[in-house]
Every structure is written in structure tokens, then in C-alpha cells.
């Protein structure tokens, strides 16, 4: 068990608003970690920093020992909330890009996943529903053998049936020695999939630990704890 992500005293502000306030965290390998917290608590900002999209911060962030840059981008697989593929693309065009730039992209696996979702390579993104597009993005992210998968709300806006399929896809396709970081609002349905959770609020770390350990210590589920902490 080694550390894949190490964050020390991370500060990030947008103008006068402090989105991340002295955050220190560690993520270990071979874990599925839930990143939980209300909207605006800094989850997406944290993920963007890990993926190298935001470099304007104070503090120390290390992924596999290195600061965010081209190397870390090659070992981090990101699924943002927004769809990032151009409308005119076919699925095969997206596969071409990933094959060209990511040496860990497994095109065969991607095609297999496509089939499982009843999609095919020649479809144009323009002609797909939002749900289908999101599945394509998920397939792209999960067909890479990354050391760190960063999935931003992969389950919101998805119907319950698709949710299970997505979770199954995540579980059965992530690389054995890697870490999966999932941010979500849907704690109740999903907490049994997490090894550990990190709960954030108001830019700070509220709680972090192993799900079963927390249940044992507190006698409550993560969902219940969340409701207590963030009760209005």
C-alpha cells in the first residue's frame, strides 16, 4: 500500500472566496474513495487541481511524487462533469485522440464497453442523447490504465438502472494498482462501493476514513453522518 496522492496545506481562492482552505490529504493505492460534500465545497476545484487544469494555487500537491504536469496527466484519467468532446466527432474520432495521446488507452476494451452499452464506434456525438454521450465519456476514462481515476459526479442525472451499470463498469474496469476518486451527492446508494471517504465542507476537510470503520465507530452510515453534519 503506497501513497499515490499527497496534498499539503492547499489553499485556493476565487477572488475573495476561499474555495480550499488549508487542505491536507493522502490517497493510497488500490482504493475506491468517495469525495463527498455539498455544492461549492471545493470538490470540483480539488479534482481540477489534481488533473492539472488549475495551476494557480498555494500549497503542495503531489501525484505519484510529482507536481501536476505532463507526467501526472499521463497517469491520471479524468471524467469531468461536462462533456468535452466536439459535436462533429464520431466515437472513433475520440478513440483516435485517446490512442494517440495516452499510451495506456486500451482501444479493444473501449470497443467492448461500447458494445455493452449498445453503442458503436461510428455514431456521431451530435446524434446521441445526453446519457449516451456521458457513457462514451465514461468509457474513455475507464479504458485507460491510469494510476488515478478522477470521476466528477459520474452518477448525477443518470437513471437508477444506468447507475448500477456505471458503478459495475467502474468497479470491474479499474486497474488493480490504481485509485479511483469519485465525487457524488448520492451517498446512500453508493457508499458500499467506497473503501474510504473524504468529506469536505466549506473548503476544509471534515472527515476522512474507511467506510466500514466509520460505521463501526459511529454506528451510523455515511449518509446519516452527512445529513447530520450539513443539516441546514
Amino acid at each position, binding site marked *: 500500500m503506497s501513497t499515490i496522492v499527497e496534498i499539503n496545506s492547499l489553499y485556493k481562492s476565487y477572488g475573495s472566496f476561499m474555495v480550499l482552505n488549508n487542505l491536507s490529504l493522502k490517497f493510497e493505492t488500490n482504493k475506491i474513495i468517495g469525495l463527498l460534500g455539498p455544492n461549492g465545497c471545493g470538490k470540483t476545484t480539488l479534482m481540477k487541481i489534481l488533473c492539472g487544469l488549475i495551476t494557480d494555487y498555494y500549497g503542495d500537491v503531489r501525484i505519484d511524487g510529482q507536481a501536476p504536469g505532463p507526467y501526472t496527466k499521463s497517469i491520471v484519467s479524468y471524467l469531468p462533469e461536462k462533456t468535452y468532446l466536439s459535436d462533429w466527432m464520431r466515437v472513433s474520432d475520440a478513440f483516435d485522440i485517446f490512442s494517440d495521446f495516452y499510451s495506456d488507452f486500451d482501444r479493444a476494451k473501449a470497443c467492448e464497453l461500447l458494445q455493452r452499452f449498445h453503442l458503436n464506434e461510428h455514431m456521431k456525438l451530435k446524434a446521441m442523447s445526453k446519457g449516451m454521450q456521458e457513457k462514451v465519456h465514461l468509457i474513455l476514462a475507464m479504458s485507460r490504465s491510469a494510476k488515478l481515476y478522477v470521476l466528477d459526479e459520474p452518477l448525477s442525472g443518470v437513471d437508477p438502472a444506468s447507475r448500477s451499470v456505471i458503478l*459495475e463498469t467502474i468497479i470491474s474496469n479499474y486497474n488493480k494498482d490504481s485509485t479511483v476518486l469519485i465525487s457524488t451527492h448520492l451517498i446512500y446508494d453508493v457508499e458500499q462501493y467506497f473503501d474510504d471517504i473524504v468529506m469536505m465542507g466549506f473548503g476544509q476537510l471534515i472527515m476522512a476514513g474507511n467506510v466500514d470503520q466509520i460505521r463501526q465507530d*459511529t454506528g451510523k452510515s455515511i449518509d446519516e453522518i452527512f445529513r447530520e453534519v450539513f443539516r441546514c
Partner: protein
Amino acid sequence: MNDFKAHIPIYLQLINAIKQFIVSGRWPPGTRVPPVRELATQFGVNPNTMQRALLELERDGLIFTERTAGRFVTKDNDRIANVRQELCQKVIENAIAELKNLGFTEQEANLLLKTHHSGS
């Protein structure tokens, strides 16, 4: 899609579920246990949690690992019978506790259990 009770550690609930499979004969003695990832997907849990449950079951002697072949349900029928007894005890205790919640005494509860016929 959450069949798990909220406040009990999941791995404990998994251990219980698998014990039931074994004592009920759904997983007969000597059956091959599916690989962790497959089981985890089946139950809808984290593979590490499933792994933890399986390790506990190994420690309890209900499952054993054959180095290259994988995991198997024990062939020790006495062991299985013991576990079935344990689980049975718990079920009965729970039933009595619930009857007591309805206002019956310990004796009345016991009598009800003994004289119960389904469909009456």
C-alpha cells in the same frame, strides 16, 4: 439499490449473507467461490470490502484457499452444521425479542414458536 443496513459495517453483513449461502446449501460443500471482483459486482460492493469478508470466513474455517486453484467452500460438514446452529439461534432470539415487543412474555413467546403451524 442498497440492501445493506446503514449502521452495520458492510463486511459483517457480507459475512452473514455468505454464511447463509453456505448453510442453506446454495453453495454446497466444496463449491468453488467466485473471484472477488465478480462477487463484489454481484453484491454491489467494493472489492476490498468483499475481500475482507472472505478473509474472515477463511479464518472461521468456512472457506479455504487452494494455492493455485482459488477459494472453495469447506467440506467440513460439522463446521457447517455448527454455523447453521449459530445462525438459527440468532434468528430465534430475534423472533422472541420481536414477540416481546408485541407485549408477550418470554414463556408465551416460546410457546407460540413451538406450536406454530404455517397457514393457521
